[in-house]
């Protein structure tokens, strides 16, 4: 169900503001509302800057051996210690930042030197020192590149001019050449060069032949590289201080969140607005009281036009399925929380799609161990729990259908592959129940909103019609036919009731009757349960068959067969867990939610201590 929310208004003195925000953050149950555009407190930007710097420093040190395995637990720290800004962390951060920027500069310079050296490659055959490539008393000197395709035209055009062209190697921009032109024709030659797409070369400064300059540049680059490497060794030496920087980053993140919203203010006082769960008001009041007596705190129900965040609350078995709903969208405030109705169907469908008791057992044990080891929290924790429940359901359904690691063994119900029609009937039957549940929820919300007409004409009428179809197949006599006709008649006459005039109303009714095709396609969609179960079972069979062939091939064959069995079944589990989760969720989103769900709720993000790298113990 959706938790009712209260609107909080807190007036207090500005002197107490920092302490109050700190207390509220520790309590972690108030989501502040941005009432002013400029409600951030002074210093907020600086803190964000520090946070970014700290993150970059962590990233830098991670690249230099500070990265820990995923298994490593977060270092724990007491709340009081967490409040003291880590000066060590700040110092280490500055150090890491300085190192990072020095290394970056050195590497950059090195790259420039190397590319300069490379740009000289076409000039290796130049037999005079580079610094002597300049104008003399009577000549002008052009150094550069001419595209190869322009060479022929260029040679022809320059045949009769007072000039000399020496050609060297070919670079990316064309043929390297030195053009010596007599000053009397220099202008003309310059134009000509331009016409043939001649580009001037910017040769690196240096003295001596091209070979010598290249050597100098390379030596310089090697020196820079060595310096950079020395600094990297230094960075590795301070990698151990990453924890301090991480603590500092968490502290900055917490501080930044506190400073992000200071509410509206007068000269001496300020006012905060926010949302609180209805059952958390007392703890909020207590934390405010612990700071000061000079306050005015008020909780009230949301007024019209105020949209509180949507908080879902369910019992332990259903709560994990909130993650499935969150993947779609939170329910709109004031509508139904679908978790309770959805959970059993998700559970059943997941098990039927995976439908192998052996896989279910492996998955149950693996997930149990994983949850003990990693203790996933929040969204990831809920999602893991959904799959854990699903794997239990898989054991049940696998036993029903007799699937054990792709082998058939004592089905309690029947084997779907041998009796596909029975299986399809089972899928459609469950699907029908699922869809009817969705329609019943819609009826409930319509009746609650006072729209009896809508409930009867748009929902119950369909149910009557479906009941009629069901009776036509199951019960002798014309009762089914009459029920179905009765339902259809309601839809025909009232489906278009908002239209004016008898004719357009009947046409509207006829159009709503056409919706039967959408109900039909919804129902057919449940056949995917069978298909996905088939995929798991048959791929398991394929793996087993190949392994059996290998077993007859001596000792090597046995080893390969064992490897294949382990690897193949693991692959099959992974790919089919993905499929089972995606498709059983999809059946909720499209078929079930389509009947009643109203999306568009906001997330509840209270001001709280959300640490990324450390664990704060209170």
């Amino acid at each position: 169900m959706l938790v009712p929310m209260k609107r909080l208004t807190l007036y207090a003195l500005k002197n107490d503001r920092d302490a109050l925000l700190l207390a509220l953050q520790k309590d972690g149950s108030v989501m502040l509302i941005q009432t002013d555009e400029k409600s951030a407190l002074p210093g907020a930007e600086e803190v964000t800057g520090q946070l970014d710097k700290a993150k970059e420093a962590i990233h830098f040190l991670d690249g230099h051996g500070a990265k820990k395995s995923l298994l490593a637990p977060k270092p724990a720290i007491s709340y009081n210690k967490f409040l003291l800004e880590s000066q060590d962390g700040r110092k280490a951060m500055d150090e890491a930042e300085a190192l990072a920027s020095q290394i970056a500069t050195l590497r950059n310079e090195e790259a420039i030197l190397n590319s300069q050296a490379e740009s000289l490659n076409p000039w290796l055959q130049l037999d005079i020192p580079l610094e002597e490539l300049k104008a003399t008393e009577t000549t002008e000197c052009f150094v550069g590149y001419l595209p190869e395709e322009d060479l022929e035209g260029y040679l022809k055009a320059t045949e009769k001019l007072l000039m000399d062209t020496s050609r060297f190697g070919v670079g990316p921009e064309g043929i390297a050449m030195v053009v010596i032109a007599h000053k009397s024709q220099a202008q003309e030659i310059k134009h000509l060069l331009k016409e043939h797409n001649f580009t001037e070369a910017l040769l690196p400064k240096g003295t001596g032949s091209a070979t010598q300059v290249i050597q100098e540049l390379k030596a310089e680059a090697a020196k820079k590289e060595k310096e950079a490497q020395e600094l990297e060794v230094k960075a590795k030496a301070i990698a151990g201080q990453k924890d301090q920087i991480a603590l500092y980053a968490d502290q900055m993140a917490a501080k930044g969140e506190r400073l992000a919203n200071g509410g509206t203010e007068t000269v001496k006082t300020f006012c905060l607005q926010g949302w609180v769960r209805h059952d958390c008001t007392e703890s909020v009041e207590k934390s405010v009281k612990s700071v000061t007596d000079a306050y005015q705190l008020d909780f009230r129900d949301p007024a019209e036009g105020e949209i509180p965040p949507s908080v879902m609350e369910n019992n332990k078995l259903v709560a994990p399925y909130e993650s499935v709903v969150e993947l779609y969208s939170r329910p709109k405030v004031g509508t139904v929380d679908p978790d309770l109705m959805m959970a059993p169907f998700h559970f059943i469908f997941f098990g039927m799609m995976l439908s192998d008791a052996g896989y279910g057992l492996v998955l149950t044990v693996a997930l149990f161990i994983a949850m003990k080891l990693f203790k996933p929290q929040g969204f990831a924790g809920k999602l893991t729990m959904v799959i854990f429940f699903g794997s239990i359901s898989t054991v049940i359904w696998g036993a029903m259908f007799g699937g054990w690691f792709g082998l058939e063994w004592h089905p309690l119900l029947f084997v779907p592959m041998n009796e596909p029609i029975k299986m399809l009937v089972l899928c459609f039957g469950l699907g029908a129940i699922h869809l009817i549940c969705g329609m019943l929820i819609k009826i409930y919300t319509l009746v609650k909103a006072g729209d009896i007409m809508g409930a009867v004409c748009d929902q119950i009428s369909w149910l009557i019609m479906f009941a009629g179809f069901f009776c036509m197949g199951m019960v002798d006599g014309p009762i089914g036919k009459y029920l179905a006709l009765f339902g259809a008649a309601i839809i025909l006459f009232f489906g278009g009731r908002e239209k004016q005039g008898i004719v357009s109303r009947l046409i509207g009714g006829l159009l709503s009757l056409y919706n039967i095709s959408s109900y039909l396609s919804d129902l057919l969609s449940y056949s995917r349960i069978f298909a996905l179960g088939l995929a798991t079972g048959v791929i398991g069979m394929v793996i087993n068959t190949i392994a059996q062939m290998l077993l007859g091939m001596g000792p090597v064959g046995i080893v390969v067969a064992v490897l294949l069995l382990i690897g193949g079944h693991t692959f099959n589990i992974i790919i089919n867990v993905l499929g089972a989760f995606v498709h059983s969720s999809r059946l909720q989103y499209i078929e079930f939610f389509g009947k009643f769900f109203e999306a568009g709720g906001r997330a509840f993000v209270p001001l709280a201590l959300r640490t990324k790298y450390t664990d704060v113990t209170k």
Partner: protein
Amino acid sequence: MITLGTALAFGGAAFSAALAGVGSAKGLAIAGQAGSGVVAEDPDKFGNVLVLQALPGTQGIYGLLIAFIILLKIGAVGGSGVKELTTFQGLALFFAAFPMGIGGLLSAIAQGKVAAAGIYLTAKRPEEFGKGITMTAMVETYAVLALLISFLMVYGINI
């Protein structure tokens, strides 16, 4: 001896596995190219990207599945020896592979495109990952239906 019917049934199995496999390979390639670009920007997204990339891979598995069931039906796997099918039995099995082969081929490529779009969606708005998966899974519906009808057809042929 292998009759024309048996050969046709082999043709059906080959058709189903090959076409659906090609489709999945193309689909995975489309999604994988998009995914590499996103991972280059943010390596932390690899997990999410991989899930989306894997989705068009199922058609190849379904194609293999139908091929395997056909082979099972005609006794080519399982050690009982290949059965001699009449030409019409073989032809029926050949046709039964059509939905999976063609449906798998085209739906996997289409799904690969949607998966690539979903990967870009995840890059820009990681919190909308679930919607990207749902939209990609919509395309798969038709591969699932193809699988189902191919299976029912193979199942329904008496040998």
